[in-house]
């Protein structure tokens, strides 16, 4: 049975998994689950994945959820080129550290972006409290600073100075691109003066071309619609 990926490309981890699959020519079917319509919480979807979260994959009846777990699994199952998730323990540990760090640090970026925009305009939820926005904002800014100043180096184009991307580059990269949903001034405030991050995203887009850009079509057009409607 063909591998299936369930997700919504508005969500950054779904994009990351999608890019990994495409960049490696793995045969799969994409099952669109609209977050906006709450389709991830329907009983049909919960029967497949009780956690009610996307993305998840079903590989020959085996359900895998959690984005970094899915990516690790795909690397092992399909014996993907070593740079995605290196076999060498020290290199692998570097990638693992980034994946773990992501959860409790950089992941605040999409939380901030969501609260600043989509929460009200797209998801029609009540506006968040200022304190929550501030909390996410602080964690996001600190994480982006760490990304710029210590995880990206002059040595190579990718995280921890690697010359080729790992699954952490894709996952963290798709988190940072979520900032396309911010208004221009805010985006400049968050990402301005961070040349290494800009260079890294460009390198990621180029190495995985055309997949990175294609998978970002949905979010980039949604961002444009939001910007147009706010004017």
């Amino acid at each position, binding site marked *: 049975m063909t591998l299936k990926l369930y997700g919504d490309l508005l969500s950054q981890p779904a994009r990351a998994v999608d890019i990994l699959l495409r960049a490696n020519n793995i045969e799969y079917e994409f099952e669109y689950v609209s977050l906006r319509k709450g389709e991830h919480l329907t009983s049909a979807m919960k029967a497949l994945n009780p956690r009610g979260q996307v993305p998840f994959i079903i590989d020959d009846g085996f359900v895998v959820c*959690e984005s970094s*777990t*899915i990516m690790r*699994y795909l690397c092992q*199952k399909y014996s993907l080129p070593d740079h995605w998730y290196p076999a060498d323990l020290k290199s692998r540990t570097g990638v693992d550290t980034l*994946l*773990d760090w992501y959860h409790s640090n950089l992941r605040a970026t999409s939380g901030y972006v969501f609260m600043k925009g989509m929460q009200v305009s797209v998801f029609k939820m009540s506006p968040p*409290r200022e304190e929550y926005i501030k909390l996410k904002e602080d964690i996001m800014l600190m994480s982006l600073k760490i990304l710029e100043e210590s995880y990206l180096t002059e040595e190579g184009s990718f995280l921890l100075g690697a010359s080729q991307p790992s699954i952490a580059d894709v996952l963290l990269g798709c988190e940072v691109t979520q900032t396309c949903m911010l208004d221009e001034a805010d985006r400049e405030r968050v990402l301005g003066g961070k040349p290494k991050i800009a260079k890294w995203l460009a390198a990621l887009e180029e190495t995985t071309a055309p997949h990175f850009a294609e998978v970002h079509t949905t979010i980039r057009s949604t961002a444009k619609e939001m910007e147009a409607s706010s004017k």
Partner: protein
Amino acid sequence: MVLRLYGDLLSQPTRAIAIFLEVNLIDYELHFLSLTKREHKSPEFLAINPRGQIPALVDDGFNLAESATILRYLASTRSVSDHWYPADARKRARVDALLDWYHTNLRNTAKYVFSGALQVLVFKLPEPTYEEVKKHEKDMTDALNYLETTLLTREGPFLLGESEPSIADVLIGCEVTQLKLLPKRDCEAILDSRPRIRNWLQELEIALGPHFARFHVRVDSTAKFLESKRSKL
């Protein structure tokens, strides 16, 4: 050079790693850093882990941080039984998913526990707002309910119905034991309504032997200290 673990036994991931090392008879030195004295922000420690977070591990000049990464690394570099971190892709994905779930879900237990007496009486920080405490409580309750109803099953004593523990059992177990720092009646109420979690903690204690209790001594004594302070309030 002998493996060095830096941490504080009030930190749940530090306990998890120390217990894992002991159970697997891996030779190491434990370097205590006091969180209350902010020793994890000292220049000496920042040279080891620039993030200034514990636990951290140094293996023959190789420095590592992040608890799940450390546990995966140890399971891969030391000869330990396969059940800790299975080589089979599907089995490994199940453990990986638990470790990822932990970060964004059950880890909120720590925030709720901390936002109580620990924050004020032990760390001498300002009191959290009512809303903060309520939010952490809801996140924790959701995670504990998921643990009770879905991750623990009737099939086997360990997470996802396994018959032997994985590194996720140790890490998640050491997070749940942090509940001991709540007022005793609150901790009991949480566990009384979740019999599978209670049973799983007992199984874990049996599987991990005396090390589980030994590395919880600091938690137990801090719990007693907090209980005595509370009775005087």
